């Protein structure tokens, strides 16, 4: 019995970590711009395809393909900011959100047109698919995903709390006018946020691709759950996004195991509805309220 619980817990945390990585991108852009970027999932998909191009099609080393893919995502973040957000930055949030949806459709269809509809296989980082630890099988890719998520939590804390750039980004997200009066280049900070979010989304896509395969739909599937995780955690809160993502992964995995497999996705959205009704500010909502 305990072995099953541990196996489910490991898988739930693994899949939750993927939601958390994408959710983090949602949160960072929301904090900086006050809009939800519905193309965040497509960042994951594009990065996974870039990996396939570099690593599989061109046969370049995995680490080089990884770095190039993330560099490509940074570039995409710049283009996205300049092409989608920047021209609409003085408009209300609605046109920007619609623009992100449009960009998401454009990215999905561009990849479809360039690369075709075939799902692709991307090998993981490790030769060994996983390790057996007592009764529990630990998928090496999920282990990597969890490790990267932990590192990112630490990195985000250090970056946003301990570095000047992080503090400038925080200041920009909290009050753009005040930040501007203090000599912070708001446009540059927003640009950096988009780059970082695109890289984070891309990282999630590259990490999860060996598990879920590389397909046009992979981004939207993950993004939907990540969006729910963001609301559960508290929109605008970095820790909330991580906790929300992990919680969602664990809840849906245990819900599937002990209640119903076909309604697995339903559990995630039931939790979402519960939060929307009883705690719309999310788990870490108080800090957001204070900020507002």
């Amino acid at each position: 019995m305990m072995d099953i619980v541990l196996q489910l817990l490991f898988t739930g945390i693994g899949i939750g970590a993927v939601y958390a990585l994408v959710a983090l991108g949602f949160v960072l852009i929301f904090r900086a711009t006050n809009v939800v970027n519905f193309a965040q999932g497509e960042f994951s998909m594009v990065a996974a395809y870039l990996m396939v191009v570099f690593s599989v099609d061109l046969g370049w080393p995995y680490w080089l393909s990884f770095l190039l893919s993330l560099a490509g995502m940074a570039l995409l973040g710049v283009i996205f900011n300049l092409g989608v957000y920047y021209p609409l930055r003085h408009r209300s949030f609605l046109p920007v959100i619609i623009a992100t949806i449009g960009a998401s459709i454009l990215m999905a269809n561009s990849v479809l047109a360039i690369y075709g509809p075939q799902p692709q296989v991307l090998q993981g980082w490790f030769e060994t698919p996983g390790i057996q630890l007592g009764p529990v099988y630990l998928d090496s890719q999920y282990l990597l995903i969890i490790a990267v998520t932990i590192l990112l939590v630490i990195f985000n804390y250090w970056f946003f709390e301990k570095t000047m750039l992080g503090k400038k980004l925080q200041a920009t997200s909290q009050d753009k006018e005040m930040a501007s009066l203090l000599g912070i280049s708001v446009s540059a900070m927003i640009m950096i946020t988009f780059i970082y979010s695109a890289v984070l989304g891309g990282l999630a896509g590259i990490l999860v691709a060996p598990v879920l395969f590389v397909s046009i739909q992979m981004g939207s599937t993950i993004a939907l759950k990540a969006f729910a995780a963001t609301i559960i955690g508290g929109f605008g809160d970095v820790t909330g996004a991580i906790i929300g993502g992990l919680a969602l992964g664990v809840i849906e995995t245990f819900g599937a195991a002990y209640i119903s497999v076909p309604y697995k996705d339903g559990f995630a959205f039931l939790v979402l509805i519960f939060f929307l009704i009883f705690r719309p500010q999310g788990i870490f909502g108080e800090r957001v309220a204070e900020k507002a």
Partner: protein
Amino acid sequence: MKLTRRDFAAGIAAGIVAPHIISSARAQGATLKIGMCAPVTGPAAESGGYAVKGAKLALDAVNKAGGVMGKQLELIVEDDQTTNPGIVLAFSKLAADPDIVGFLGSIRSTQVHAMAPDVLKLGKPVMIGGTDPNLTHMGNQWLFRCRPNDSYSGSVIADYGVNTLGKKKWAVLHSTDAFGTAGGKALSDALTKLGTPSVLDQGYANQSQDFTPVVLAIKQSGADILGSYFTFENDLGIFARQLRQLGVTIPWVGSPSIVNITALKLAGPALYGTFGVADYAEDSSDASKAFGKIYRDAVKVAPDNQSSWPYDAVTILSAAINKAGSTDPTKIREAILATKKFAGAEGEYNFDQNGDGLHGYNIVKNEKGNIVFDKHIESAN
């Protein structure tokens, strides 16, 4: 020359009538059109491409042999986007063209269900690949199936597992869409008839990202054999990997998706040693071998059921129109239902009055990525 009022009237009349006469004459000399709804985009776009290629190969063969009723066949493809609304829209576009005499629907039962009311309203023959048994048993006389239905696959999977592999404790895993639900039910019913009811009947939602709970349920059930109905290959690929990773090595007999090209590519070694019911098996007959050769030559990939059923559908539809000697839908329908002992790529067609052309399945085995024909089993149903 003096233009009289009568000459003027005659000129006007000729001017009005002439374009119609010319277009009518053109229409009579034009090609015969067949419409095809295929997933050009969406999750099944890859297999959709194979389907279109299969249909076009049949079209070329028919046209080389003189066409249909002395005319060349033309295939009009509309994208069904792999969705139910998509196929309804695609079919309505095709149905609006009065020159289209017959259609190819979907391999996906849910999509065929979605388009079925419009098919009934239009009243023209539609060849389908969807294997939900209900499709040809719900009073829609215009649907003709070019694959064996799931009531047959269920009984063949059960027969092979129980009588050939000697396994009695079954776990049945199926998608919760129309195809998977019908397939899972057919397998469970067949197992009950054989006196070996399943120990686990587990559904899952399409596009699941993780099957750990499912694999653990199979382990806990104590099943010694697994029967499955997967709709999408990426689901099958993820499940197959996790099944092996979590140490489940029981024999696995799956529905046709377990041996299709995309699934083999995605799952790789995780599917080695599995069995599948396959409506198309290259070595099962001379006609299957012949199709396999022309498909490999033209497309450069191994043939599978995604391409073989549209190939047969176009061939059977063309032969039926030729036999009917007319494009009248009722006469074509009668000719399709009269098709007997027709050697197709999928097997020998003997249409019954419900519109089902095939009544048995081949069992194939995945031997290190190669799909090897084992035996053909005619359904006991």
